[in-house]
């Protein structure tokens, strides 16, 4: 915001309160009410206003208080924001970012736990899900500077799960580029967000048994970094696609299909998916939430089966 006056923040409680997770804490004092706007509780309006501001030359970063509530803005995001460049034959772009806290295992139940990346995956949009503070900063700066709309989903559990040093100043992490979070040679795990860390725990368990697990952090889940996915799949020949979203019709389903399509001749096992359950909602009760979520223990079991195949 210091560098570029066009950048502004808007959303429910992002100003005076600094956001429910204090992500925008202090911005109001530094950049003033005109650039840090508290909006009414109306997500459709937040997205619509952000769209207008973007077309008018601003670089809005709009926050949905939880991804679960982004559905109210579904029409604006997928029908208008995503299609604006196409509709205007490239004349108008929509350089905005929609941020929203996502995901479960934070005891948030029905309205505060959802993974909506697959539902919002629409040509014209990029969807980014960072897996650590360092990654979040570099990816968010890149998203803000991107000339086209980016949905930026931050995992709630990662807000408080661990700390890591984040350099002051600018650095950009390119969008649509996956990263190798952990090198391995026997099995590849494709995941993003919180699951990167759960997969890392499981990989340690497998290492004790002499199985070397590679973890690819997708970072941008739509569109996928096809080269990185296919390269790792071809390298190991055994693939697990891991996600917290409902099992069916997910970003992971797409990654699995891509691997089957382009790495088939290298594969040594069926492409496995492991995700959340196909049930209407993340349950509230702790044991039921555990039951829903892919946990390090469950991931370890799945990886062992794949190693033994």
């Amino acid at each position, binding site marked *: 915001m210091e560098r570029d006056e066009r950048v502004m923040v808007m959303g429910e409680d992002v100003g005076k309160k600094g956001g429910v997770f204090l992500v925008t804490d202090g911005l109001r004092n530094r950049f003033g009410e005109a650039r840090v706007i508290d909006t009414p509780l109306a997500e459709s309006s937040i997205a619509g206003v952000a769209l207008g501001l973007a077309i008018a030359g601003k670089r809005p970063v709009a926050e949905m208080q939880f991804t679960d509530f982004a559905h109210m803005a579904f029409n604006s995001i997928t029908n208008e924001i995503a299609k604006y460049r196409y509709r205007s034959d490239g004349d108008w772009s929509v350089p905005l970012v929609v941020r929203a806290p996502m995901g479960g295992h934070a005891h948030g139940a029905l309205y505060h736990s959802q993974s909506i990346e697959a539902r919002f995956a629409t040509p014209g949009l990029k969807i980014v899900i960072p897996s650590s503070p360092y990654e979040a900063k570099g990816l968010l700066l890149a998203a803000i500077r991107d000339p086209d709309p980016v949905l930026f989903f931050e995992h709630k559990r990662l807000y408080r799960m661990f700390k890591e040093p984040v350099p002051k100043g600018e650095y950009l992490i390119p969008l649509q580029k996956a990263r190798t979070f952990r090198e391995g040679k026997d099995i590849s795990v494709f995941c993003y967000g919180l699951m990167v860390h759960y997969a890392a725990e499981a990989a340690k368990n497998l290492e004790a048994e002499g199985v070397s697990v590679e973890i690819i952090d997708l970072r941008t889940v739509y569109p996928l970094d096809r080269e990185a996915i296919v390269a790792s799949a071809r390298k190991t*020949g*055994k693939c697990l696609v891991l996600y917290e979203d409902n099992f069916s019709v997910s970003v992971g389903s797409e990654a699995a299909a891509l691997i089957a399509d382009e790495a088939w001749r*290298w594969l040594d096992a069926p492409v496995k998916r492991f995700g959340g359950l196909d049930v209407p909602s993340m349950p509230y009760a702790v044991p039921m939430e555990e039951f829903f979520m892919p946990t390090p223990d469950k991931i370890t079991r799945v990886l062992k089966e794949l190693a033994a195949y």
Partner: protein
Amino acid sequence: MAGKTTRVVMPQLGESVHEGTISKWLVKPGDKVVEFEPMLEVDTDKVNAEVPAPVSGILREILAKEGETVQAGAEIAVVETGDGAAASPKVESQAPSPPRGEGRGEGGAQKTEAQPAAPAPPREGGEHRYSPGVQMAASDLKVDLSKVTGTGLGGRVTKKDVEDYAAKAQAAPTATPAPAPVQPGEGDQVVQLTRERRLIAENMTRSKQTIPHAWQTQEADMSGVVANRNANKAAFQKQEGFSLTYLPYVMAATISALREHPEANSTFNETELIVHRTINLGVSVGLEDTLLVPVVRSADSLSIAGLARAVNDLATRARGKQLKADELSGGTFTVNNSGTFGTLFSYSVINPGQAGILTMEAIVERPVAIQGMIGIKPMMYLCFSFDHRVLDGLQAARFLTSCRKWLEAVTVESPVY
């Protein structure tokens, strides 16, 4: 409708016996067969064995005729069992129980042999379905997939198996090129190898390729043994009907030394050493065209006369080709008597599965120094080939010393019975 039938298969008659020739059927189709009663005779590489029926019933069909050589496990006959009233015939394959005593040590070993592994589950999708990744790795690494052992689900060959196989093949020293085959020259005679000769060749090659042989010798003063034998041989001949030789003395010395040094009575298993409690002593019996090593079981329970009887019995039957398969296997140590042919030093080859072989050489009268004077004594070299993975020079020397001391301690009065 026929009753339940059982298919009889060729049993495996010995550890390294994989096929047999049916020499005689003792029953014919329509005959009654009784479980455990002899059903046919099989000629394996070394012995004629009677094969008992695995079940009682009626012999319906003979699938392998006399003179036919069949692999162990192949079906050779069909026996109808039950009352024939079963609604649907049920066919089972059943191998007759192999002859007893195949395993080492017969429960006497400190570590019993592992149970035979359960048959591997059938490979998923048949024998030759490999994943694309496996096929690509095999083609890249030039690996013949039929040689790779699968460790995956249901015995599936995994990409890792292929890579491990290739890595091992690369690590293994490249085999020295085989010498160009020698073409028979004019007047040369080409002799086809007999089964016995082939088997001996296989065993000896395996031994030399897998066992790091080391060798030691000591010289024993046989005065006492010679005196003892001279004192006993007439009575022994009269009592037993065969002559008393030096072999049982050396066997007794060996047994005593094995008791003192049990590690010499063992099997090296790559990751562990199986020290046998029972001493099953193999004795080389050289025949004109072959060599047999029948085994005296629990040899440590026998006196010199008992050992002599056991060896005489085995050697007599070996010459008549009447040994049973289990009398040729299960040895834990071997005594070799090439001295009887006049040899002085033998570098004998260890029987695979054993830790050593002791050879008694010719007993020769030699001038020796005795307390500053020269005397004539019947002397004998004891040559010991041992598995250097099991024994070092020190233990081997101790073992030999025990043998020698035992022999030198024999006097005219030492009991033969």
